[in-house]
């Protein structure tokens, strides 16, 4: 890949946005800091989603299972060995007697996410359209069910707690940037280009010899690894996790972030994730009462979800291709736009 001004801008804009979120996160009070860390962690998840969904055009409902696996693996392996037998007596002895550090646990989370995606993807990537979406959803259902009830590999229905809270704004930024770099490189790789060609016209792509299943599998495995990494960041941010935190709600919310931002561009994925995530946190605070510049804002309890749902629907009605229109940042888009818009 040649480094052109265009490529620099396409990578630089989302990277700058992530850095800005981190810098603001370092400056604000400790309570508000969590919102900015969440935005970065969510951005990592959505970038992971984008690697597969954005490039292949297949909607996956299953990526949160890789987030869940990453979160539970990283969390489980960083809890101190002294307390493990007390909180999780049914664990496999091997898991009970070993612990690893923060960075190795993130690497482990990514490795598990990628490996599971690779193994599961081999049969699943033969599917397309809604069949593929539902099959990935089935994966999510199985992951959630097994993590909730198999007490040899985790806390079961209990909360996995006492995980070291090592994800600050800086670690979250590094994680998100790693995801961004990998996503960007994949986007411009041969496999990424062929996959997008197949997204636009599967029959034409097949006719010129593109092996769609193989490229989908590559994208699926990469995005699985990034989702696993995001899970590791997540568990180290909040210090505890339950299986329901990484199930349906997170699936819907992160998919909404991707589509609202604009699912056919990396820029859209980052904008959607940061925007919706910060909005979500803001509305949550508003339920408890929060100051907005000059006046005090308090909304009734439970209203944050309602407002979020309505705003998401409105955003989709007015920008069906996402806030960014599904385009990458370019110099011409910064200037006045002329000519017809791409549908």
């Amino acid at each position, binding site marked *: 890949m040649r480094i052109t001004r265009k490529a620099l801008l396409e990578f630089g804009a989302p990277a700058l946005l992530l850095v800005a979120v981190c810098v603001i996160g370092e400056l604000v009070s400790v309570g508000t800091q969590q919102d900015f860390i969440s935005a970065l962690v969510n951005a990592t998840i959505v970038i992971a989603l984008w690697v597969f969904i954005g490039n292949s*055009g*297949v*909607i996956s409902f299953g990526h949160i299972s890789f987030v869940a696996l990453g979160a539970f693996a990283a969390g489980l392996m960083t809890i101190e060995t002294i307390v493990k037998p007390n909180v999780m007596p049914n664990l496999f002895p091997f898991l009970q007697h070993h612990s690893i550090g923060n960075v190795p646990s993130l690497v482990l989370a990514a490795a598990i996410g990628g490996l599971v995606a690779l193994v599961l993807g081999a*049969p*699943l990537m*033969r*599917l*397309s*359209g*809604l*069949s593929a*979406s*539902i*099959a990935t*959803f*089935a*994966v999510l*259902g*199985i992951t*959630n*069910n*097994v993590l*909730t*009830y198999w007490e040899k590999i985790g806390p079961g229905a209990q909360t996995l707690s006492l995980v070291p809270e090592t994800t600050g704004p800086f670690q979250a930024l590094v994680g998100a940037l790693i995801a961004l770099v990998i996503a960007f490189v994949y986007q411009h790789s041969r496999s990424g280009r062929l996959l997008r060609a197949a997204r636009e016209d*599967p*029959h034409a792509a097949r006719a010129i010899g593109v092996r769609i299943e193989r490229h989908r599998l590559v994208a699926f495995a990469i995005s699985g690894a990034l989702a696993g990494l995001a899970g590791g960041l997540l568990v180290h941010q909040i210090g505890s996790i339950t299986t329901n935190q990484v199930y349906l709600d997170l699936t*819907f919310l992160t*998919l*909404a972030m991707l*589509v*609202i931002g604009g*699912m056919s561009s990396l820029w859209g994925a980052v904008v959607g994730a940061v925007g919706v995530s910060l909005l979500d946190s803001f509305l949550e605070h508003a339920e408890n009462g929060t100051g907005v510049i000059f006046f005090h804002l308090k909304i*009734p*309890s*439970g*209203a*944050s*979800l*309602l407002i*979020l*749902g*309505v705003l*998401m*629907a409105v955003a*989709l*009605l007015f920008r*069906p*291709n*996402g806030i960014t229109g599904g385009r990458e940042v370019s110099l011409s888009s910064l200037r006045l736009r002329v000519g017809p818009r791409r549908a």
Partner: protein
Amino acid sequence: MTALQYIIDGIALGSVYALVAVGLALVFGVMRLVNFAHGELITAAAYTLYLTASWPKVFALAMSLLVAVALALLMELVVFRRLRYAPPATALIATFAVAFALEAVWLIAFGPQGKSADVLSSLNQTATHGKLHIRWVTITMVGVGAALLAGTGVLLNRTRIGLEMRAAAADFRAARLLGVRANRVIGTAFVLGGLFAGVVALLLTASQPLVTPTFGLQVTILALVGVVVGGMDRLVSATLGGFAIGFANSLLGDVLPSSQGVFLTSFLYLLVIVVLVLRPGGLFVPGGAAARVERV
């Protein structure tokens, strides 16, 4: 005898899921929209039953059906109508957003704890024949399900609007060029969807009266899985798919040893994956994979 018992229970639950599946498939047929918000129609009807518990039963039942139909039309008018030509992913996420917002409404209005809607709980009594125990609600489920499905069949095959709906499902643009009114067929699909959702709410509350904000969502997700496994492009295969997933769910629950019972979801979804990989075009679609269309 127990085998017969399992089969009867399975058929009953299958009938309920088949009704959810028809609602989903009708809307998908005419506008290619996977409507996750369908479950909220079921929830709305169920909460209406709770609110109207003191009314005479007939009025309470009619009111809950009315609410489901009205909400279905409202969704179409306010949101989905504007997204007819939007990318499929956008429309899909918009149905999430609607479901999300409505769930928040239920949460604010009724709280996270369940409300009891036991209007039809008298149906929970058991009719015993030999070793066979059948709750009346089981018989009602099968009867109502069969009647409504038959009614839908007649509507689609014997009436003008049915013909128009089938035409729209086959090729929406061509149907419009031939004079089929888009709003009319789509509106009818949503009315029928709402009606079936209302009936499903009646049947579900009769067997299990506790209504929570996610009451309808759970059923809808599983029915949707069934619809895709069966074959979403045709109403018959989609309905059979819905029936099959309900039947399989009930049967697995009965035959799994209790120590494995908690893993029922895993077994069910594993089955789903196997079927999808073997027959990606739909389990009940003749010709299977050969006739499939690639779509997002």
